[in-house]
């Protein structure tokens, strides 16, 4: 018990020291050769997105369902004072439909924000740019053509801009033209 208490105190002191060191150290040099990724799960699939392709991540709030023919559109939700359409990310990736799409949302497209609902948030990390590469499989989904090597495993990277473009196309098809 005494040993565990000492270990806990040591961890606390280390945290405090690292936090203080951030402000004590000079600004770090920019590292363009590294890429920031957010790892997450859509259904049972372990996937990743590039951090720069998102505008935010949050717990899912209540979604108000609306009647629509837009593929993957679940409804609208209120976030940071704005009404945002919420899409089922798994449905847009072609995964089988589920009753509960997930409890997390990912914001994209800062001009006309949309929320992509997914199952579980894992973490945010940085990898070498060289760890990103095109998928070698010809049968890959259109939005999962990039692969990232993380800790010795390969994980598909979701093409968020491509998904945004697909949504915009779907919406444009269903929106009547202005006279």
């Amino acid at each position, binding site marked *: 018990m005494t040993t565990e208490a000492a270990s806990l105190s040591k961890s606390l002191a280390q*945290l405090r020291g690292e936090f203080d060191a951030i402000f004590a150290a000079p600004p*770090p040099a920019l590292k363009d050769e590294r890429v920031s990724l957010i790892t997450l799960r859509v259904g049972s699939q372990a996937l990743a997105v590039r951090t720069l392709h998102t505008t935010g991540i949050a717990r899912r709030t209540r979604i108000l369902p609306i009647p629509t023919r837009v593929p993957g559109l679940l409804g609208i939700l209120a976030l940071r004072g704005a009404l945002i359409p919420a899409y089922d990310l798994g449905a847009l990736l072609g995964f089988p439909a589920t009753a509960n799409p997930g409890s997390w949302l990912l914001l994209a497209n800062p001009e006309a924000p949309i929320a992509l609902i997914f199952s579980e948030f894992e973490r945010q990390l940085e990898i070498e740019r060289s760890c990103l590469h095109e998928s070698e499989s010809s049968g890959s989904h259109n939005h999962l053509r990039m692969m990232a090597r993380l800790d010795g495993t390969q994980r598909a990277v979701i093409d968020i801009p491509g998904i945004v473009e697909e949504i915009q196309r779907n919406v444009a098809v269903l929106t009547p033209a202005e006279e």
Partner: protein
Amino acid sequence: MIRSWTFQNKVTAGFAVMVGLVAITAAIAVYALQTVVASKDRLVDINAQNLINAEKLQAASNDYTAAFRGYLLLMEDRFLDQRRNASEAYEETFRRLDQRVYTSEGHRLLNNIQKAQTEFTALQERIILLRKTKNGLEVATRAVEQEAVLSRERFARDLKAFVDREQNLLDEEKRASTARASMAATLLLSLAGATVLFAAITALMLGRALSRQIRSAVQHVQSSSVELQSSVNQQATGAKQTSTAMSEVTTTMSELLATSRQIMESAQQVAHIAEETASAASAGDQTVITTQESIEGIRRQVNIIVNHMLDLGKKSQQIGSVLDIINELAEQTNILSINATIEAAGAGEQGKRFAVVGDEIRKLADRVGGSTKEIRALVEEIRGAVNTTVLATEGGSKAVDAGMHHFEEVTRGLKRIAGLVVTTTQAAREIELSTKQQMSAVEQVNSAITGAAPASRENEVSSAQTLLTATQLAHLSHDLSLIVQSRAAA
């Protein structure tokens, strides 16, 4: 049943049978004699008399015929008188014969005789009348020659048949009488022989029975004398052993006396120790009461510990709730730092430094989340330890209760021990008293045994005398056995 008779019964029964047989023999002899006499009497009185009367009848008939012939020749009346007298004699003789004849054949023959006599008489009457006529002699002679001779011959033939018949009866009666006499003589001889044979057998059986009974009695006496001799031997040996044992008993009684004294001293010590044990039991009782109060205090303290441990469990649950809040804050901080990083990346070159700070904040939030997990694990361990401690303390409380119960039993046991010690003290005193009485009794027994020693020696001498008498009795029975066996062999 006869085997169980006494010798007197057997002798009496034998003589009674002998007397009976002699009486039967005498009765049969008398009966046979009377039968023979009766047969001879009938032979003499009837059959012989009939023959005599037949001769008389023949003589009377001859006289009757001679008187008839005399009258025919001389015509004198005296012949008629003679003829009448002869006829009466004939009638008298015939009447006797008729009375004595006892067979139907005899009566038939007599009737024939009587019929021939009647015809002859009638013929004579007619011839007599003819004689009284003129030329009566010639007529009468012719009538006699022609008729009377035939009638006379028929009479003679019938009379001869009767005589022959009577003669045959006489011969038969003689033979029957002789046969009866022979049979009676044979029967008497048989009875006499049977009586003699029975007498011989009875004498032989009585002799054998007497010999057997005497021999059996002699054997009994002999075996009894041997047994008596053996018993007397054992008695003599026992008397010697008794004398020896009396000496040993005297010695043992002395040792018993010494042992009784030791027992009495031990009983006194036991009584003393029992009194000390009673005092110790009282002190132990007080100690148990003090210990019982201490255990009661322990039980109260254990209850307090249990309550404190339950409070500790509740506090640890509250710590868990606080940790949930901290964890939630760390997660939100993490999300905020990620969003800050995204915003910084969107801010271009100016935001990159802020992105670094956001990244550090994210790392800090990650580590806070990890620490909260560690703290949660520790809190869970604390809660488990508290639960275990509560259970152990409750077990201790139960153990204390059980200890209290056991101490109550110990208290009762000590009280019972104290009671038993009092009883033991009383018993030890009673043992002491009894041992004193036992010592007195042993001394009396010792004195009595000392007085009994001469009696045992006298008993030994008496046994030797009895042994001598038994030996003499055995010799006597042996001599008697030899006498009886020699007679039986003879």
